[in-house]
């Protein structure tokens, strides 16, 4: 029975992938007879804009890797290997940082660094008497900066895990035999953590390649396309007809690239595990004593990081939300401050979006967990010959860009299932695609927990005469409960901030979600209203975040990456 559920959950994953590849050879619009063609690939490789987009994407993803590692590596080292005070606070701030929607910070950064309205630009131009703005957020560097800041939380969590699996005695052996702090870092710590950091870099790069929100919010209005926005543009163009064939061709290439990178990620990760030693010794490693001066420097760095990555965009959004037209803070501007933007929000739509979002928050994590319990059980306990296939397929939604999953679903609903099962523009399609996209995350969490439960615990119950479902209910579920609660909350929160998949799946007021409303306002040019809507969304999200912090365990997160 569990096997059947797993198959039911994993079939769409494979189907979506096949649809994407199929789409690339396909021409026509709904209802027309199907024509197969290589036209899209020919056009794609002949078009100069393809190569520009490729370069854009690579530049954008590389910048985000550099930026995220620049903040994540020192922060992880400070937390794991020094006596810097306030570690719990750092952890909490970084983890919450991972939950702040990227479209949120992106908007904040536009207000900061836009060449025309960005307040830092204006300030510097006034102060230094410059003709042109010194910074431009609507550039590859600018977009990579914002994306990198957003991804630094994940990079941090991954690199912390690398430090944790390294035997601290390896560093102690260097210290004891006369290497000082910096030589130990240079010759022992860095080379040993290098594979782990490299794995994190590849992981971040993969996310950067298919990242949608930053390019959509900052890049698209300035005609800077990356693959994700390029694909989106093919599906929802402003003038011409949508070209699913072209989107399919680009998506296929991106999927292949992403799968290759994931393969590289696992290779590197395996290499880094070679260095991991489980000592089984309970002592805490000697922490590097930074001294008062070091603490000050460390917190200066951390402070800059938190201010730049989270606080500054947040303050700017608050400021923007209070103004009719965006302008830098001044006495004159202060007089115009009002709550008009909030009053003027489309509240009916917002409430409807909130209702949809809440439904998603409840349905998606629950469904995902049911599917993934079955998958994990099949992989780890069933003894089935094909069980490792299940594991590999369950990993696919992680490697395949989520935007592409969504496009495959839209395509399927429009062209294949239109008359059988009307999904297009419904909340159900959102639930299905969101659920599928979270399968990798949830299976890995449950796999890790289930692997720690000795099979004899279940066998004892079987021998005692309990049927499979009862064993699940009475033995496994209680033992897995902490992991399940954690995964549920985390996935619920991700539903709140999901814009990428919603951008193609939400096609009507009927299935609109909160992030889509914010984005809609932003695209429509009412930036200040979008800022206000953004704050409202965050306010809706807050109770869930508090629940997460209360129940969540940070260690579980590191296991899932």
């Amino acid at each position, binding site marked *: 029975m569990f096997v059947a559920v797993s198959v039911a959950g994993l079939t769409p994953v494979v189907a979506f992938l096949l649809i994407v590849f199929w789409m690339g050879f396909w021409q026509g619009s709904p209802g027309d007879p199907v024509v197969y063609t290589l036209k899209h690939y020919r056009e794609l490789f002949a078009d100069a804009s393809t190569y520009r987009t490729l370069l854009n994407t690579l530049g954008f993803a590389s910048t985000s890797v550099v930026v995220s590692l620049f903040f994540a590596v020192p922060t992880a080292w400070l937390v794991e290997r020094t006596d810097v005070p306030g570690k719990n606070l750092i952890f909490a701030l970084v983890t919450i940082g991972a939950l702040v929607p990227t479209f949120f910070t992106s908007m904040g950064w536009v207000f900061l660094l836009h060449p025309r309205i960005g307040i830092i630009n204006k300030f510097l131009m006034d102060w230094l008497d410059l003709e042109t703005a010194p910074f431009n957020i609507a550039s590859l560097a600018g977009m990579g900066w914002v994306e990198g800041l957003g991804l630094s939380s994940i990079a941090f969590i991954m690199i912390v895990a690398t430090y944790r699996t390294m*035997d601290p*005695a*390896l560093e*102690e*052996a*260097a*210290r*004891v*035999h*006369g*290497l*000082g*702090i910096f*030589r130990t870092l240079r*010759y*022992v710590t860095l*080379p*040993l953590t290098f594979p782990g950091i490299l794995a994190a870099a590849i992981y971040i790069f993969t996310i950067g390649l298919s990242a949608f929100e930053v390019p959509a919010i900052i890049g698209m209005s300035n005609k800077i396309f990356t693959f994700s926005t390029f694909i989106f543009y093919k599906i929802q163009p402003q003038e011409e007809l949508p070209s699913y064939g072209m989107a399919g061709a680009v998506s296929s290439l991106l999927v292949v690239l992403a799968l290759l990178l994931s393969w590289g990620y696992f290779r590197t990760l395996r290499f880094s595990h*070679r*260095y991991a*030693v489980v*000592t089984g*010794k309970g*002592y805490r490693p*000697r922490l590097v004593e930074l001294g008062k001066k070091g603490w000050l420097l460390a917190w200066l760095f951390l402070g800059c990081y938190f201010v730049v990555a989270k606080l500054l965009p947040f303050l700017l959004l608050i400021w923007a939300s209070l103004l009719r037209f965006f302008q830098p803070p001044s006495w004159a501007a202060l007089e115009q401050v009002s709550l008009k933007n909030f009053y003027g929000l489309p509240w009916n739509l917002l409430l409807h979006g909130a209702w949809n979002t809440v439904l998603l928050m409840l349905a998606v994590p629950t469904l995902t967990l049911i599917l993934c319990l079955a998958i994990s059980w099949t992989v780890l306990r069933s003894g089935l010959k094909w069980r490792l296939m299940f594991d590999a397929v369950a990993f696919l939604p992680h490697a395949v860009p989520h935007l592409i999953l969504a496009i495959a679903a839209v395509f399927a609903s429009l062209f294949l299932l239109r008359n059988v099962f009307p999904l297009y523009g419904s909340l159900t399609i959102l639930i299905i695609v969101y659920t599928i996209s979270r399968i990798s995350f949830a299976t890995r969490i449950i796999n890790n927990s289930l692997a720690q439960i000795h099979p004899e615990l279940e066998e004892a119950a079987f021998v005692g005469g309990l049927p499979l479902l009862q064993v699940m209910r009475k033995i496994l579920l209680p033992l897995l409960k902490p992991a399940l609660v954690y995964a549920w909350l985390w996935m619920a929160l991700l539903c709140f901030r999901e814009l990428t998949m919603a951008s193609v799946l939400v096609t009507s007021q009927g299935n609109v979600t909160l992030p889509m409303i914010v984005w809609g306002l932003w695209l429509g040019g009412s930036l200040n209203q979008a800022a206000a809507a953004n704050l409202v969304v965050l306010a809706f999200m807050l109770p869930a975040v508090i629940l997460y912090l209360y129940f969540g365990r940070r260690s579980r997160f590191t296991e899932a990456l």
Partner: protein
Amino acid sequence: MISITGLRKNFQSGDHDVAALGGIDLEIGKGEFFVLLGPSGSGKTTLLRSVAGLEKPDSGEISLNGKIVFSSSRRISEPPEARAIGMVFQSYAIWPHLTVAENIGLVLTHGRLRLNKSEAQARIRHALSLVQLDDFENRPARLLSGGQQQRVALARALAVNPALLLMDEPLSNLDARLREEVRANIKKLVSQLGITVLYVTHDQVEAMVLADRIAVMAHGEILQIGNPFELYRAPANSLVAEFFGSINWLRGRMLDGGRVETEIGTLVIAAPWQYEGNVILGVRPEDVKLAQTSAETENRLEGTVLATTFLGDQVTIEVKIKDKSLIVKALPDDAKPVGEVSVQLPKEKIVVFPETVAERSLDYK
């Protein structure tokens, strides 16, 4: 060589403090092989790591070679790299990203000595020949077996010519046969080189084979310091006695004239004790003699054989005397007694402690 006074360290465990080191005083001489022996949680590793500078004690003083490296009152706490030591870790801590030669070379070229490449090369060769790994120079360290890693760790620690060699359970991850072999090698090597060794183990056989002197630790205190013979024959309390092999305990009450009334009869003890009250007597199974093999009549008792266990090199016999059963070890050719038997307890082999001390030996120092 090492001089430790009043060393204290508390660990937070839940909501209360646990003393990992409860005021340790210790003097170790130059060239001495000194073993810290104790069960896990006794504070022996914390003490070793404090000497290395890997753990910072709360108070007290440590000096190495006459130089103070830690003093809470003078606010001195030298980092590990400033202390002239070599160390072998329990996990060996062999750097997996380097070759065997690089593992040793790194501490020579970038450690305290800062040797140049060619000087280092000669030292690497020498160190590897000491541990019989001459041909392993270019082997990636992560491909070594546990025993080989252990030897590289020892070569690395010796290569820097340390005044003091610290070893933290270096044999506990080896299998039993290899352990015996490596144990013998270590003993030969350090006595050749004449270095001072501070060695941590929980294995009393290992401690007795290697040590010039042993400090037995429990609950962050040193229970007794002495050479292996003293600790075995004259344990300071019942805990030390139990740590060094099995022992039969008898409850009793002191009478006059060196006699003790015990649960199996009145026994004579060797040391004239000026003590009135309840005592506890200990006698090791191998010291109890079966009457057939002894003509001695003092402390001779009659009993019944309950069980006999043949162990190859010896026989363990459980003898019931009154309501108490006594374990006796004998050679296998002493025949296997059945039924009635008489045993004899040589008085010079009996240890005696006041009962309060025996029961609460940790409060006694």
